[in-house]
């Protein structure tokens, strides 16, 4: 008996020590990982009042257990990504323990918790700022849950510049879900301006990228070809992913010593994803875009689009079909020799100047029928290295995944090393889904930030 009692006491003490409690264990995690979005200044309902937040305890724990929140799509265990705000296994276990214990609530802690994600962002020095639809407003289509609308910014510089950083300030966070900036080169700038101007209202509808949705229609493309022979093909190839913003992101700088080339006469097409389903009737009163630029960078870079261009014409060539009520998986790969060729063409650098390629980021881009996806690297011996695995795709939380450490591919590996993107789709409708540009079509693309390491490591001056 005398032996047993201390043992029981110690056992209960251990349980008491291990049991997660609200203020001590849960709230710090909420403040660090949730407040950037769940706050009055954020995009979703606020977790700034601890007592009110406690009322979400069951929903919060369920979302954490199912990996729905925080909305970080990448499976852990493959690579370390910059700004990874997912919860660690240990942090998830704290939530699980707390839920299992019946959500115990300890006494409120008096010290001020620091909200890492919601802390004041670092100062972002902009070299070029512009406000979209300045002085006007845009009301997204109210009959759709999402609208992807593109607005064109004239690039103001008359010499080559490298974009090295970006910050967005969306005009209405209740409807601005995310945005992607695409650059369109000077030879195609007038074409995209013309196509955009043909649509009623501000900007043009652009679900699948910077180009108007209506160009998915062969008749529309034929009309363009009549006016501008070869124009569609040129436009389709002469655009690339420049930068993006998603909730929680402040201004950021591209990886050190890198930048993306913008030629004089280019335009930036800002693809705004408006999410009107939750806030019907609300307008965007003007979103601000800020860019950092440099005249030179040590490692010129591009966002390489890894995709099968044929998929975009699937209604005609049947290359991407997702049958009604079924699933399909598609895969595409390119060697680093192909990637080098693309990068040197866009950056206007001779092949012979490139010593090595640095792979700095990956993502997977699909539309609403996307179910899962991944991007991997296969070396010359057939060994596969998973770079990004998204087991549960969610269109709403797509983003770029930048590696903490770049992967360097040496010259003698370019022709044998491949980058592979794979997408699995699920079609719940009663109609076949095709690859294409439209909102009812599908895509499978990986955009990777690729930096070129130049021989003699010379910074590339603007030409």
């Amino acid at each position, binding site marked *: 008996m005398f032996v047993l009692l201390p043992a029981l006491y110690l056992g209960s003490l251990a349980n008491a020590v291990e049991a997660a409690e609200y203020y001590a264990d849960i709230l710090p995690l909420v403040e660090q990982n949730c407040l950037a979005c769940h706050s009055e200044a954020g995009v*979703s*309902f606020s977790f700034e009042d601890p007592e009110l937040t406690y*009322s979400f305890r*069951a*929903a919060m*724990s*369920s*979302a954490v257990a*199912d990996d*729905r929140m925080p909305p970080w799509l990448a499976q852990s265990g493959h690579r370390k990504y910059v700004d990874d705000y997912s919860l660690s296994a240990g942090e998830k276990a704290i939530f699980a323990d707390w839920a299992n214990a019946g959500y115990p609530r300890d006494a409120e802690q008096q010290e001020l918790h620091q909200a890492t994600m919601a802390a004041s962002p670092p100062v972002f020095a902009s070299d070029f700022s512009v406000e979209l639809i300045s002085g006007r407003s845009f009301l997204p289509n*109210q*009959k*759709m*849950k*999402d609208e992807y609308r593109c607005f064109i910014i004239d690039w103001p510089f008359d010499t080559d510049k490298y974009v090295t950083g970006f910050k967005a300030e969306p005009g209405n966070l209740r409807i601005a879900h995310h945005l992607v900036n695409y650059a369109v080169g000077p030879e195609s700038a007038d074409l995209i301006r013309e196509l955009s101007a043909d649509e009623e209202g501000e900007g043009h509808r652009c679900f699948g990228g910077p180009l108007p949705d209506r160009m998915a229609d062969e008749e529309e493309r034929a009309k363009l070809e009549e006016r501008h022979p070869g124009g569609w093909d040129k436009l389709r190839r002469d655009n690339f992913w420049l930068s993006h913003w998603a909730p929680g992101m402040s201004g950021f700088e591209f990886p050190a010593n890198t930048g993306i080339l913008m030629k004089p006469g280019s335009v930036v097409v800002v693809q705004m994803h408006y*999410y009107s*389903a*939750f806030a*019907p*009737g609300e307008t965007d009163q003007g979103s601000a875009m800020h860019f950092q630029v440099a005249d030179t960078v040590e490692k010129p870079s591009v966002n390489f689009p890894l995709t099968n261009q044929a998929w975009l014409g699937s209604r005609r060539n049947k290359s991407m079909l997702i049958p009604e*009520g079924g*699933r399909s998986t598609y895969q595409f790969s390119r060697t680093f020799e192909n990637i080098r060729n693309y990068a040197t063409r866009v950056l206007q650098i001779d092949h012979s100047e490139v010593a090595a390629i640095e792979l700095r980021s990956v993502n997977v881009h699909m539309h*609403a*029928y*996307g*179910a*899962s996806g991944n991007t991997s690297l296969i070396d010359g011996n057939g060994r596969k290295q998973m770079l990004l695995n998204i087991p*549960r*795709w*969610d*269109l*709403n939380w797509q983003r770029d995944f930048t590696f903490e450490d770049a992967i360097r591919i040496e010259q003698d590996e370019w022709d044998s090393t491949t980058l592979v993107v794979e997408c699995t*789709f*699920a*079609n*719940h*409708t*009663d109609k076949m889904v095709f690859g294409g540009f439209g909102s009812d079509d599908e895509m499978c693309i990986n955009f990777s930030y690729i930096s070129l390491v130049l021989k003699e490591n010379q910074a590339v001056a603007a030409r």
Partner: protein
Amino acid sequence: MTSRAAKISFVLSAMLLLVAGLDDGRVAVAAVSDDDRLPLAQLQSLGHSDGYVAKFQGKPVLLQFWASWCHSCSSIMFDLDKLLKLYPDTDYLAVSMDEERDDALQYIQKHALYKKYNDHFFLDYDKILATKLGVETVPTVILFDAERNEVVRRSGHLNSNDLLQLSAGMKSIAESHSGEIKK
């Protein structure tokens, strides 16, 4: 009469009367079932048709738990609307988890699709239905067949896989129902 006694009295009345509208807009749902498949619960109408739930009897039901603060709930309405058009024999019931009835009512008036299904919206009085069904988060969507058996349950924002499972469940129910009619 105490509140608890009133509830018991209400439940018993509902079981006897199958479906009954109350003076304050509360109605019982699935009163034909007194088992745990689709439990008897007390729901407060957010629409205006007390007798609406009577139509559920003998039909599959798509039950959605939502809240006025929930972004994903408003978004998946667009997907559910398409599925309900595809399988019109499936009935739809939207149950609000809002603490305040006015929050739910005001949000319904803002959202075109919520207004479209206005008669299908209810408040889960004392969270009885959610508790019985073990629903902890919104959105949660549960598909029941005509015999009140749970066929599919998905929680959180629905992606393409979730929608495929839901539509496959609705299709399977519709096909088996049509087979029974032919027999």
